[in-house]
């Protein structure tokens, strides 16, 4: 009987935790969990297909190789179209961003002021591309839960060098996978919306394989499809250097 009571209370406890997962967690704790799911792997590489779709539904396609290690190191290199093959972008930390243009064999640092500019015609800014840990720059508040998703209002920390007034993010309550980010400008108007779909668990890590960023003002969107995703290959830091940025794409 005691055992039955124990099992019952355990089940009740589980039910409570499953159905009301936010209970006992602060918004910042949930944000930390979302960040940790995003950055759970030690490294990752993938091929990304980009589709840039303008207001008249003209589509431009790009194929890029992406690599990530830890929370900071990231590299993006273009494979297609042929005339920009080898163009690369390297992030060492939030202040150290580099660009490589193979035509001139030059790696150039990008000034942080330029981070609010769109990255290579996409709807992602350099800041969006390099944002990996939301908790570093934002404080979460106004938590709510709806349809199995957390909804967090992210307010920039006073020290954060970000270009948005605030973000609203949505993540699945079941696995803390980020599903949507809404970007608000300083007039507090929503200017962009990122949705993440096609969620799969690959090698034990949750990953959204399709990302769709829409610029609401311009009616322009960028759709990213990930493939050939590989985790924890033991990438070294030297893979994220200006030398490796210049390496020809095979």
């Amino acid at each position, binding site marked *: 009987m005691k055992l039955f009571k124990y099992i019952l209370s355990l089940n009740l406890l589980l039910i409570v935790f499953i159905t009301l997962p936010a209970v006992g967690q602060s918004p910042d704790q949930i944000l930390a969990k979302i960040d940790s799911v995003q950055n759970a792997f030690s490294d990752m590489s993938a091929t990304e297909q980009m589709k*840039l779709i*303008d207001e008249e539904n*003209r589509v431009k396609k790009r194929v890029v190789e992406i690599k990530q290690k830890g929370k900071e190191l990231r590299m993006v290199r273009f494979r297609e179209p042929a*005339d*920009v093959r080898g*163009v690369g972008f390297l992030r060492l930390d939030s202040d150290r*961003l*580099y*660009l490589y*243009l*193979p*035509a*001139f*064999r*030059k*790696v*150039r*640092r*990008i*000034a*942080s*002021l*330029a981070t*609010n*500019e*769109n990255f*290579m*015609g*996409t709807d992602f800014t350099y800041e969006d591309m390099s944002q990996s840990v939301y908790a570093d720059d934002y404080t979460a508040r106004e938590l709510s839960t709806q349809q199995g998703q957390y909804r967090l209002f992210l307010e920039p920390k006073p020290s954060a060098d970000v*270009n948005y007034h605030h973000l609203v993010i949505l993540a699945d309550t079941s696995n803390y996978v980020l599903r949507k980010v809404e970007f608000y400008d*300083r007039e507090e108007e929503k200017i962009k919306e990122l949705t993440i779909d096609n969620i799969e668990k690959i090698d034990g890590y949750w990953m959204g394989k399709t990302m769709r960023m829409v610029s609401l003002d311009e009616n*322009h969107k960028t759709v990213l499809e990930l493939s050939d995703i590989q985790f924890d290959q033991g990438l070294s830091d030297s893979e994220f*250097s*200006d*030398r490796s940025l*210049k*390496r*020809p794409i095979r």
Partner: protein
Amino acid sequence: MLRLADLIIRYRWWIIASTLLLTVILGWKTLSVSLNADFSTYLSQDDPAVQKYNRIGDIFGGNDLGVVLLNSDNEVFTQANLDLIGQLTEAYEEVEGISYVTSLSNVIDFRETEWGLEVGRLYGPDRVPSEDSALNKLQNYVLGNERYYGNLISEDSRTAAILLQFEGSGKAGSNQFNTSLRIKDVTNNVLDSADLESNSKLYFGGLPFLVYNMTLLISENLSTLIPIMIFLLVLVLYLGFRHWAGVVFPMIVVSVSVIWITGLMGTFGLEFDLLTGIMPVVLLALGSADGIHLMKRYYELRNEGNDSKQATRQTFKQMGTPIALTTITTTVGFASLFVSDFSVIKQFGLLTAVGVILALIVTLTLLPALLSFGIGFKPGTKNVKSEYHFLDRFGFRVYKHQKLILAGSLGIIVLAVIAIPKIEKDVDWSLCLARGSDPYHAEMMLREKFEGSLPVQVVVDGDIKDPAILQLMHRVERRLETIPEVGKPSSMGSVMAEINEVMNGRYQVPEKQQGVSNLWFLIEGEDQIERMVTPESDMGLVQAKMGTWHTGTLVTSVDSINRYLETLPEHLSAVNLHQLDPPKRQLVKQKQLQLAMQELRWYFSKEGISWKPDFMREVQDKLLNFTAGRSTRDSVLVQLNRYLASSQAEIVLENTERAQVLDRIAEDLPINNIQVTAREVSHMLESALLGLPEEDADWLAGSLANIINTTIGRARILPAIDLLSSLNPENDENFRENVKGILWNVNSNIAFLDSKMANKIFGDKHPAVIREVPVSIYQAGMPQVLKGMEEELVPTQIKSLLTALLFVLVLLAIIHKSTIVALIAIIPISLTILINFGVMGYLGIGLDSFTAMIASIAIGLGIDTDIHFISRYRDELIASGDKLQALQETIKTTGMSILINALAVGLGFLVLLFAGGQHIRRFGGLTSLTVLVSATLSLTLLAVLIIWLKPKYLVGHSTSDDIIETTKEKRHETI
């Protein structure tokens, strides 16, 4: 005619009621007539130049430029001003009808900072500098960039410009007048919450605002001046007739016809523009003339004792034909404006012609219907003719001084003919604005500080991402800068050069396609790029600004541009110098150098630096016969060593390996004027480092070849830059950058030559020609359209005048069955037109599309008086058989009507001399003069010619039975 008059009198209530009903219906329709101030719709849409202009506007989101100027007594670079520019820019971006906004706050900027490459904004909305040092730094940077000063900021940094690209008229809802209104509203909204410094003020300029202001000015003018014109008309009518009916009835006729034509405009969806806005005034003048003649005759008949119905019948019978005739001729005068290239002039001509016909219908239906009631007028027996003794004396003098009048007329002809060549063809359009007004001030500021606001557009069809075409576009920009009144060119050519300067330190379009693609990638998706090139990159624009609204200067500049564009190739050959034998390579190098020197010459011309041929030959020799000396070679090796030791080097080499590589390269370092290729360097690396994988060698070789070529290239042109800089006393950084960019082309391994020239040098299908690039370049902007119109102005004017005169001549000859009468009738008109042009010549009034219109109005107005005069004289001559008596009687009756009409209309138009814009003043003054001259000539020259030439028609030998019968009947009635 009598039967018709009887019908009108019988059904007069029906006529009055149906006129009233129609007036109410059409009056309601007038409410839907809106105002159109979109200049592009003023043009003839069938004109190929206009079609091209519209097409380019549709492709590039509009081609009319409006400019909002923030003018400060001090400096624009304050936090408040920059913040305001940012707020206005953001607000304008949301305005319907505006496709792009460019200002200091959102212009795309490329620069190298201590933090690295920056492709971004000068300052963001939340990054407005506040500290003086930061503001000064920004100011210095902006004033040092050719793309910003003269475009977005004046060189004295007291005026900032926000450029607004208005959507083309092709887009739905893109009425530029409404867009201009919205811009003003949005500006006021922003100013409600933002700070406009007390010493700052906003101005609005550029074509859309110019037309907007002109239209407003005309509306304002007319709303104040039309009542004064009406008052004068009423006054003159009253003084002429001394009876209220003489005032009210003609005014009713005119008002009804104006309401009808305006209502018809509403029915057919037509809009008022800056010309049709004047139409009611013109109709007021024209429509009242027939009414005056009719009323005058009616009074005469009443005074002769006829009752109202009888007087109406006879008035209708006697005046119906001349009035119908005058209407037809007036209609022809205005309809001749249909040949104009301006659709507004066409519309004005057509609507006025229809309006005149409507006025005739009303005059011949409503007026007799009203007169038949005989309201307020008692029949008398006094002879009204006897009241005007001064006209008797006048008639006598005309009769006695026939030769003097003829001689005087000849004298006037001579004087006018002398003056006609003096007519100014270089008309300044901005004089349409009231001098000293804010819009006028804005135009002057745009001219003086921003090199104008009228966009020059050169269209380039071809693969815009090809360096051959981009270099050509950059050359076109340089050439445009040398053309008088053309300034501030821009295109993807200079944008690529600017990014390349930030990336590689030279203001020049990269020679390789990959280089262009890489740089292009940095600015992909930017709004400001969409205005320069199509999304498919198959069409690009070279844009500049025309700093004049003087039509003559504009035509000269447009012609200069076209002449240059005609010299450009239709195909370019990209030639790889590595695949040429040394003599041919040297030949191509010479061609490259010639092109560079030509470009340099244009740049010097723009900078006002004198070109010294001997000096330039020295510079050319230095460039062509350059040999890399020891110091250059050492410099190359130092650069290579530094690179190989850096973290950027593609492969890590030990010190000994580095030394081996450098030794090997030193052996084969090129000393002549050809660049080394990556393949050549790769071979050097493989032979220096045995066992080095080919892949690694290739990888490293690209960077090393780049360093070698850059270092040697710099050494080649540096002495030339130093020499050339000595010619420029200011020797600023911009000068050196420009010179370096131009000269760097002589280092290039790929030359872009005219295919015809390339074929001549190499023959067909030479392997050195790596690709052929087709290109087509032509001008398509508003200046090109205006040029076409200006050139057509005189031929069109002549065509229009001759058509109208010929038509009137034939018509009169047929009606009167007398060529001589027809000729006599048009002589005073022709002289009136000559006097009009003569006055324009002496007073320095320019011939533009608007002043050119006055001649057609002169025909319309003048022929009326001539027909009435001739008809009456004929009647009087047949009646009395005495020329002097006939002349005196005619002058006392019809002559009096002509005088009343001329005074009423002439004084009315004279009021326009008090209008704000110079164009409307000139229009008013010249039309007034035309009316008065036309009346004077009818009463003098026409009279003399009739007496002198004695046409048979006038003495009753004509077979015009109707008129003879009319006369007989009249005499019988009088007896």
